[in-house]
Each structure stands twice: as structure tokens, then as C-alpha cells.
């Protein structure tokens, strides 16, 4: 859910949207926002699954320090989605384990 209007921050003036793909599904994102913001706005809260127990993980620190939010972005694993901005046509995949092929 996006905060379109806010008593202190005012109206969200960002109008430009781009499209990104998350696990094959196309979603709308606001230009320049962090990947995690676009995901959350579209109700996606799971970023990855752990190696051994295959447990889901999502955002924890939000400022790029804990790596709980990493996903595979344009083929590259371990990208911190909370500090990486979206780009038009970006391909984002839920990360399984610590590298791409580790399902």
C-alpha cells in the first residue's frame, strides 16, 4: 500500500512509472524508487529463502546492512533490494540460497 497523501509529506508527486518483472510477473514501479518499495507496494514481502531450512526472509534493517532482503537482480544474486533503485525492464527473482542455481 502506497502512502499517496500524508499530513506532513504532502501528496506523492512522483508520477513517472516503469515496469519491472518479479518472478515472471510484470509490476509497476515508481521511477527511481528502491526495489523493496516497489515489491512492498505490490504486496510482495518475501525476498529470499535460506539455504538449509528453505525459510522465507524479508526486509529487516532497511538500510543495506543485514542482507535479509537480497534477491537475484538481472541475473546477479545477493543484490540488496532496500538500497538498490529500480530500472526499466529490471528482472528480479526470489533468491533461493546464496547463489542463483541453489534451489
Amino acid at each position, binding site marked *: 500500500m502506497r502512502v499517496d497523501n500524508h499530513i506532513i*509529506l504532502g501528496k506523492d508527486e512522483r508520477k513517472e512509472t516503469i515496469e519491472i518483472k518479479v518472478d515472471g510477473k510484470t509490476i509497476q514501479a515508481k521511477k527511481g524508487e*528502491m526495489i*523493496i518499495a516497489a515489491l512492498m507496494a505490490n504486496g510482495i*514481502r518475501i525476498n529470499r529463502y535460506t539455504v538449509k531450512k528453505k525459510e522465507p526472509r524479508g526486509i529487516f534493517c532497511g538500510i543495506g546492512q543485514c542482507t535479509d532482503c537480497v534477491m537475484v537482480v538481472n541475473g546477479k544474486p545477493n543484490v540488496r533490494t532496500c538500497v538498490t533503485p529500480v530500472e526499466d525492464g529490471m528482472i528480479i527473482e526470489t533468491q533461493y540460497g546464496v547463489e542463483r542455481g541453489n534451489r
Partner: protein
Amino acid sequence: MIEKEVVVIGGGPSGFSAAVEAAKRGAEVLVVDENLRAGGQLFKQIHKFFGSSTHQAGVRGIDIASELLEQARECGVEVWLNSVVVGLFKEKKVTIKKTLADNSEKLEIIQAKKIVIATGASENAVRFKGWTLPGVMGAGAAQTMINVNRVLPGKRILMIGSGNVGLIVSNQLLQAGAEVVGVIEAAPQIGGYGVHAAKIRRAGVPIYTSHTIQEARGKKNVEKAVICEVNDKWQPIRGTEKILEVDTITIAAGLKPLIELAMMHDCKCSFIPQLGGWVPLHDKNMESTNPGIYLVGDVAGVEEANTALEEGRLAGTAIAETLKYISLGNARKLKKEIWQRLNELRMGPFGEKRMLAKNNILTAYKI
């Protein structure tokens, strides 16, 4: 190797106020920050600050941030964003992984005359069954999502911790349109200011003192939280469990200074729980046990934005003095005024523990 007079590591309130004080007197200052945007945590503080009306009390943190960055621009402070200081080597060599305009990365080594470590602090975790579920996050993460990213991290939130961060972020979650189902606090009394608590109580948010979280339940996401009462030995009391329907659990259990770079350069540290944990020692000029290396803001002890701004000013002034950009006399006068304001900010029942802890740092430094 590049040479710079002053390198400030960390572009938050303490780093930038140090940069401004030094730069406005003629020093060559570079601020390095790993984020895409400068300002540290200040741009998340949408509430009005307390403090002295002669020093921006009543102004929102976000506006203080904009003004500070504007001052830095006017003083000619150089800023490298999206650049991480990966190492601090003897003597005063700063290794930076710099991201250039075309998004390529370059390793730069800077020989600095003076360094200001303003790396801030990181949130503590509280571990409980189910804490790894998506939906459990730091209160700071929730604050970043709502105030910077303008996205709700969830709709029904349980806040753990009733210090000022817990109380303030709870209110900000309400302002963003979420429902805060409750604030829990393990201690028998509320940690933060009465006025912050009163604000959320008026808004209908219950505060459960002497309560802790037992479990977060859910298949792949937080769906429920189990809280329970604790006795005076902080132990859970059987039979007092309450189940709350929440989708998000935010943790506001304190912060700890990010001291890695200070340690790399052998700055002596001391364990001071009142200031967040291991804290590098500093003197009255905010200089560490390593001459020429200064520490300001939360890294020098977790306090608040106002003290961070003043400590930054103190170090910046001290640096300008040692680099001979201002006279000893002027420096003494300016530093005295800053110390008066710092002491004022540390007065009262909420500040006195920090005041004592900070005095202990100064004493330990001399040993």
C-alpha cells in the same frame, strides 16, 4: 594517492555539521557516504524536534536536514555519495569504494590530515520464536519505508519497545495509515517521553508495560504475535499470553554504535551500556585516542539528533583550530558555547544517564 585535508566518514547530521564548521573556515572537506542520498537518518524524522528554540527546536528533522545540506553546498563541501569507506588504515589512510557517474566502481585511497568518523549506529535485534518471518523488522526499517519510500510495511503493527524511537515511529505509522495494535515494553515503565506516549494513547494505541513478545506466528509471513507479561525478574509469567492479530512486528530495542572503522585504526573503546555498547573514547574536542581522528554522533554514543549536530560542530571547530583556520581564542569561545548547549540537552531525568556516561568517557580517555 589523493590527499584531502579533512575526510568525514558518514553523511548524517553529525558528519555534515562537522563538515560545515570546518569548511566555512577554509578547510578542504570531503564527506563520504554509502547511500544514494545524504542526510543519514535525518530525512526520516518528520516530527518536530525538541531542544532550544534558539537552535531549531520546533523544526522538523527533514527540514533541518535540507538546511544542513544547503549550508554544506554553500561552504563548498565535496560529497561522494554511493561510496563506501571499506577501510581505515594507519596513518589516516581512507580506502573508499567509489561509485562513479556511469555506475562503475573504483577503489580510491585518500591520505587525510584529519578524519571524522560519523558512521552512526545500527538497530539491535530482539530474538524470539518466529523472529525471522517476513514482517519482523527494525523500527528504523519501518520508518524508512513509510517516510522515505512512502510505502506501508504492513497494515497491523506491533511495536516492541517504548523508548522514544518506539513511541515516535508508532505515531508515524499511524500518520502513514497503518494501525498500531500495541506497544510492548519489558520494563515496568515506559521508556520515552511522557508527551510522546500521551500522543499515541490519545490516538487509541495501548501500551503494555511489563510485557514481552513470545512468538511470531505465520506460515510465510507474520500473521499473529503472542505476547505475555513478565515478572520483576524479566521472566515470562505463564497464563498471561495474549494473541494479537498483526502482520508486522517492529523492533525498537535500542541502537549500537558502528565502530568497525574506529577499531581498524586502533581507537580505544569502552563498554558503556547507557550509550549503546562499545563506544570509542573521545576527549572534549571529540578527538579519539588517535590524534587527528574525531568521533561524532551516534558512533560516539547513541543519543539523539540534536546532540549529534552539536558534537559535529564541536569536532569541526576543533579541526579548524588545529589546522589553524581559526585562532585559539575564537575556538575556545565557540567550543564553550557548544558545550553549554550539549550540557543543556543532557539535562533532566532522561538525559542524566547519558550525561554521566559521557563524563565517564572523558574521564576514561585521560587514563
